[in-house]
């Protein structure tokens, strides 16, 4: 009998009986009801079914279901300790996150501050290695003294010597007797250069001085120095500007300015690398302690909660 009535129409019949159709839906349904005997029969069936259900008597409670105090689980004995544990766990977790975030920020700050040093060191190494003479004697390269004669220094990354070398790129010592090399290979030449610049024997002297130069001028300088010397491009041992304490590279700054920078260099470098270590260890220990506290209190809270619930 109801095979022609779709599930949607059964739903509409049900909603229609309960007045749950919108005005538009109701109008459409009633129009369809007029032309469909099956729909009318279905409506009557559901209406009768609903009436039967409504005819069921309301069962009264056989007894009172009021709760007695002794019947209520004693879940209120545990909550104070549970609340404390829960709060402690939350606080420890928060502190742990804060400590971790702080640790992370400090690490990043240290990385950022240390990052330029290796680059400059590499550049310094390249410069020195390119200029190193094959004799094994530490060469002394001086540049930066403004040449009154002009052309040797223009655009070549360094000043020419007083020797007036027309191709004196890379710089030459004052009054160098090797005008075409641009490099003073003889140890004796180092003496006036060292004297002219109050070079310090401390490590990093060369590096620090060179930080005052622009990197471009240093890089441009390196290959040009080797060419006039007629030597291969320094296949020899690399001269480490930080480790070599006896081979300073003298910069272009005035002597008084160099002195100040050299004096600063030994003090500033180690402080960056070594001072944070104990602090970071403390932070790490604190993080571990906080994690343990957070876990332990959370576990205690869970156990208390389960005991209260059971």
């Amino acid at each position, binding site marked *: 009998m109801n095979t022609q009535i779709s599930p949607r129409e059964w739903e509409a019949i049900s909603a229609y009986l309960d007045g*749950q159709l919108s005005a538009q839906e109701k109008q459409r349904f009633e129009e369809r009801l007029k032309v469909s005997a099956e729909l009318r029969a279905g409506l009557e069936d559901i209406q009768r079914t609903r009436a039967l259900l409504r005819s*069921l008597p309301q069962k009264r409670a*056989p007894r009172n279901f009021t709760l007695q105090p002794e019947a209520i689980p004693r879940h209120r004995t545990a909550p104070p300790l549970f609340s404390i544990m829960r709060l402690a766990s939350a606080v420890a977790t928060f502190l742990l996150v804060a400590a971790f975030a702080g640790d992370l920020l400090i690490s990043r700050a240290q990385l950022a501050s240390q990052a330029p040093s290796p680059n400059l060191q590499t550049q310094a190494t390249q410069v020195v290695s390119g200029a190193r003479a094959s004799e094994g004697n530490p060469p002394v390269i001086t540049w930066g003294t403004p040449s009154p004669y002009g052309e040797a220094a223009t655009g070549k990354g360094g000043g020419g010597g007083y020797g007036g070398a027309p191709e004196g790129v890379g710089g030459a010592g004052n009054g160098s007797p090797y005008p075409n090399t641009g490099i003073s290979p003889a140890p004796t030449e180092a003496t006036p250069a060292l004297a002219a610049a109050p070079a310090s024997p401390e490590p990093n002297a060369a590096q620090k001085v060179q930080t005052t130069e622009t990197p471009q001028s240093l890089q441009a300088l390196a290959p040009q120095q080797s060419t006039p010397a007629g030597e291969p491009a320094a296949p020899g041992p690399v001269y480490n500007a930080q480790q070599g304490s006896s081979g300073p590279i003298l910069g272009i700054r005035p002597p008084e300015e160099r002195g100040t920078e050299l004096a600063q260099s030994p003090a500033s470098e180690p402080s960056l690398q070594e001072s944070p270590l104990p602090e970071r260890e403390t932070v790490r220990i604190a993080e571990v302690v906080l994690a343990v506290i957070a876990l332990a209190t959370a576990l205690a809270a869970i156990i208390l909660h389960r005991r209260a619930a059971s």
Partner: protein
Amino acid sequence: MDEAALVSAAQQGDLDAFNRLVLAYQDMAYNLAYRMLSDENAAADATQNAFLSAYKNLRAFRGGSFKAWLLRTVTNACYDELRRRQRRPTTPLEPLGDGDEEIETPTWLADDGPSPEEAAERGELERAIQQCLTNLPEEFRAVVIMVDVQGLDYSEVSDAIGKPLGTIKSRLARGRLRLRHCLQQYGELLPSVFRLEDEATK
């Protein structure tokens, strides 16, 4: 003291206030449980458990219709009882298929409830309807009981069941349709009122 004040007091731990709510709603709760479970003792147990659960979880009540919230608790207690029955191997539970087939099955006849013949012989329209209700899938049964037996409106049922209105409408329509099929099997055996109505429509 109005209902909201009683609920608020009960949420603060006032057991007397909660018990006043229990007295106000216990008939409704028991009626729902009985129609869901078709067993007085099980219905009483489910009702008691529901009130106990309601008291324990009263802080979770965030306003709205307390009646609907309580009905939800009762419904859940009934579902728990039905699942407990399902785990018991000796207790048959009807499959969720079409009602007219299940009535004739041996498991159905082995139940404590009367057969359709017994129901008709004793003239118990109520028992016949209750049997048909029991045949319904749980989720249809709850909606049909709430709307047609207890007279709740759709929105209250939606709150109590935790489903949208569209779902309530659909479940109600399908539940009524299944009940119609089921009751037609009783047609000749039901009291004269129903037979006359039935014949009048033919």
